[in-house]
């Protein structure tokens, strides 16, 4: 039995960013920039989504030589379906955090 808890606002922001390019692999820092989430908020959400099979991750060699490989993420099929259900139709700029960290 799985508890159906509404995703948090931060999770919705992340799902929205990931579902805009569902087949593309995205970097953690890139997602942080798009969503405005700090690393301490972003990564626990990524972990939980991975644990639930909604997100897949892999290591990708860095483009620049001498840099370490990077972790990349994208939604699984289940994750895409979950995001479609979770993100309201009128989602968009309304939930994006303002520069001071507050939500509009």
């Amino acid at each position, binding site marked *: *039995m*799985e*508890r159906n*808890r509404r995703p948090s606002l931060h999770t919705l922001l992340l799902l929205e960013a990931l579902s805009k390019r569902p087949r593309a692999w995205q*970097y*953690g*820092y890139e997602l*942080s920039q798009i969503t405005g989430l*700090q*690393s*301490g*908020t*972003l*990564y*626990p959400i*990524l*972990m939980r989504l991975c644990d639930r099979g909604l997100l897949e*991750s892999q290591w990708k060699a*860095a483009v620049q030589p001498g*840099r*370490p*490989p*990077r*972790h990349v993420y994208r939604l699984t099929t289940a994750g895409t379906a979950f995001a479609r259900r979770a993100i309201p139709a009128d989602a968009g700029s309304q939930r994006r955090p303002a520069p001071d960290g507050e939500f509009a």
Partner: protein
Amino acid sequence: MRSRKTAARAAAALLLKHAAWASPRNRKQWLQAMAHEVEHVPDDASALWWALGSIFVSYLERADNMSRSSTSLPPWLLCLEMVVCLGPLAWLFTGALAMTGRGVMPLSFGIPLVSAALLGPVGLVLALRTVFFKGRSVGPITTIILTLLAAWTVLECTEQVLQGAFLWSWRDYVLMALLPPLAVAHLLQINSQRRAAPAIA
């Protein structure tokens, strides 16, 4: 300017190293990912902020891991913990009830003491239920009642000590007033994790 930049990056690297060290085994890869990602953060302040975030993630995951793994204590160890923590209070309950019943102890003194010591036998019953009936967990009302009872135990035993009613030493106070509520808190935590377990999966 250059040295300050290097210092910030060095601090970030140290923080990330500590975060990876402190993280639970199943999250090492994630902390490694955060450490690698910092190489792509353009400015030093953001890199330092990123590294501080990794510390937060590491501690959070460590705490989460520890709280979940406590439910997997072997039954004999949990039984031992409960007997040590709740046994003395259950013994006090039996003695105080018998003495009050026989009239050896005045009611004005016996009733508060018996009610405060009630946590002992109640806690032992809860412990047996937790150990032997793993499929069941206590509900929110029972949790509230047990919490109130534990608070009453602490208050009443503290009052007894302050009044000098018994020749209580600090060891008695730990045995009667501190260990039983802690044991009950542990049992309630185990039960709450059992309730939440389906959502974790």
